[in-house]
């Protein structure tokens, strides 16, 4: 079964600084997708960024970028110029092609609580 590990339960960063959230995953698949979701106190799950495993180029979305290392099965999220509105739980998620064997949908890590210090 696939697993996703986020080793940092909590991270703190000064406003306007850069922070990196780590994520590693375990899979025997070669084709899969990876996602970062943000969950602010409002509870809403918001897609931040996604990465296709077959693409070597790292995905970027404005201040958010990833460092995807396929061989190391690592998928970290970098947030540049941190803003107060970035404070939230961040979840790394994995999805492989559906094989009909049971588990489908997204497999999530346990999340990293990001605190932004003003």
């Amino acid at each position, binding site marked *: 079964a696939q697993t996703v590990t986020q080793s940092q339960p909590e991270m703190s960063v000064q406003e306007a600084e850069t922070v990196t959230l780590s994520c590693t995953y375990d899979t025997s698949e070669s084709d899969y997708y990876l*996602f970062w979701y943000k969950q602010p106190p409002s509870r809403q*799950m918001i*897609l931040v960024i996604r990465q296709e495993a077959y693409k070597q180029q790292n995905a970027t979305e404005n201040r958010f970028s990833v460092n995807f290392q396929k061989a190391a099965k690592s998928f970290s999220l970098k947030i540049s110029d941190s803003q107060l509105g970035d404070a939230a739980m961040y979840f790394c998620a994995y999805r492989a092609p*559906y094989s009909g064997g*049971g588990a*489908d*949908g997204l497999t999530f890590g346990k999340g990293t609580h990001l605190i932004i210090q003003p």
Partner: protein
Amino acid sequence: DTAVSQTPKYLVTQMGNDKSIKCEQNLGHDTMYWYKQDSKKFLKIMFSYNNKELIINETVPNRFSPKSPDKAHLNLHINSLELGDSAVYFCASSQGQGHRETQYFGPGTRLLVL
């Protein structure tokens, strides 16, 4: 316009009761999902539906039953509620069931069983 909506947002009930949570998406998506987020914030897939057909069923108790009257709706029925069912339940949808499809989440329903 809300893409994926859930009702109610909060649900407080007694142990042993039967309750339902409704989910609707206006994105024209083919696949819908239910996830459970426990008290430690861990999210886990419960069910997914594609074209009104259940295509996966995680190891959840059979007290939980998803029902889809049409492609835009996937409701979650829970019978004989237990204390351990207290959690936040999220509905999500995607264009297809393929792994390339991004899932969009509803706002969640916080269920508290007393």
